[in-house]
């Protein structure tokens, strides 16, 4: 469950969200659209607790994130997988080490994490790139590595910010397929994108809704895709 209640966010001297409210049930699949600068990334950053609103309340997985201390935020982030548009990695570590990182910081033993790692890397099609370093990966491979890292702890929520922004159509479909599979496993998916073809493609395969950000508010796009 993701809930925003009367949230106000200022950015660069202007009010980006002015009393925004929305509620996404657990296990749902939502696309987030809107023009550039509408606040798609800001909304995702609020949900992933990288940004605090000026006022209002953000609830994720039944937790009021504004009340969490720093350790509490760290704990919550293990339940939320994030794929950024510009996927950030630790460049001197291998792809396998980067993907395993959430499990490592959560205190899982290497043996436990490695049991899922090979399968996970194979699932995102990076089995052969495990020993490479992030700077050696293509844009699509980085996005898939970020997706693998986001889900290694089997989080309840997956946030993806333009996950297909830097990849070709075939790779976009592959990433969409991964998100759909995650949703079928009961994960809540919130995917910011401006790619309407991707949204249409999803229509036939999963029950998803479209949220449109406009004028500092979020509205249902009005159609089920």
């Amino acid at each position, binding site marked *: 469950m993701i809930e925003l209640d009367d949230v106000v966010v200022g950015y660069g001297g202007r009010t980006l969200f002015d009393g925004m409210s929305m509620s996404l049930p657990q296990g749902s699949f939502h696309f987030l659209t809107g023009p550039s600068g509408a606040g798609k990334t800001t909304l995702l950053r609020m949900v*992933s*607790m*990288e*940004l*605090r609103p000026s006022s209002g309340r953000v609830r994720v997985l039944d937790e009021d994130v504004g009340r969490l201390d*720093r*350790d509490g935020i*760290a*704990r*919550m*982030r*293990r339940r939320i997988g*994030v794929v*950024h548009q510009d996927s*950030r*990695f*630790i*460049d*001197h*570590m291998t792809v396998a*080490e980067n993907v395993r*990182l*959430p499990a*490592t*910081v*959560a205190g899982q033993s*290497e043996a436990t994490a490695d049991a899922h790692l090979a399968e996970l890397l194979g699932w995102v099609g990076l089995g052969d790139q495990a020993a490479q370093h992030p700077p050696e990966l293509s844009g699509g491979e980085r996005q898939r590595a970020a997706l693998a*890292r986001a889900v290694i*702890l089997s989080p309840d929520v997956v946030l993806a910010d333009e996950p297909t922004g830097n990849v070709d159509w075939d790779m976009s479909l592959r990433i969409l397929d991964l998100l759909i599979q995650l949703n079928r496993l009961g994960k809540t998916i919130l995917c910011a994108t401006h790619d309407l073809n991707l949204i249409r493609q999803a229509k036939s395969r999963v029950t998803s809704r479209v949220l449109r950000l406009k004028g500092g508010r979020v509205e249902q796009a009005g159609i089920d895709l």
Partner: protein
Amino acid sequence: MRRPSFLSTDPTAARVVPATGFTAALTIVSSAATAFLAVFAIALSLAAGDLATRWETELAGTATVRLPAADEGQDVQVATILEALKQTPGIGTAHRLDDGEQAALLAPWFGTDLPLDSLRLPILIEVTEIGDGPDVEGLNLRLEAEAPGAVYDNHGRWRAPLAEAAGWLRKLGTVSLILIAGVMAVTIALAASAALAANGQVIDVLRLVGARDAWITRAFVQRFTLRAAAGAGAGTLIGMIALLLMPGGAETGILAGLGLSGVEWLWPLVIPPAAALLAYAATRAAAARRLGSAP
């Protein structure tokens, strides 16, 4: 008892911090350089202390009775003086310097071929004091009465400024040591801050994937503490070798006494663990600042 985090073995935590690069070199080289200087600061401090002690101990506890040269009756006067000294509390030994000893005393100024017989030199009686020494004023009054012209001199006039200079030397050595320790602390703290700033992306990624502040801090503290210790160890070793290779003949001049001997060689071994402790504290503080400013 809980183990300090830099001693804990968490290879993955250590691996998230780059093992090479500018910040790694900065920490190691700055630690090595300051440790090298610290070895010499310790040597300087110990040498200053030794010199000060030598000045104080070699002059303290000795005195001289000077009897002006006279044509006759000197032996009687010397015997009287020796008897008076023998009866005076605070006097250990007293003996008249013979011609050979007087010649040796004057040799630095007049050479070894000095014809003592042709000179009217005062008679000198060398005295060693015990305990707090004699009552100088009372002794001089007695000598004035029993051996007119004889003066008891405990070198107080020129020992006082030397003792003061020795005290200043000691302070100089201590201040040098404190300054070097301060420079080492600041250098390591700056290196840790620079390293954390340079590894901003690593910290952002770790926070994104749910690492707690304590875990991130431990990762950096572990790396930097070990780097500082390794750098300081290398710097200390090089400093000790340099001291060892210093010309041994430098008994006089600016290098006189600068070196270590015996158990003094143990002092520089304090430097690497001290550097490690400084790095531990500095990195923890820098990490707390860096993480505190993150959302």
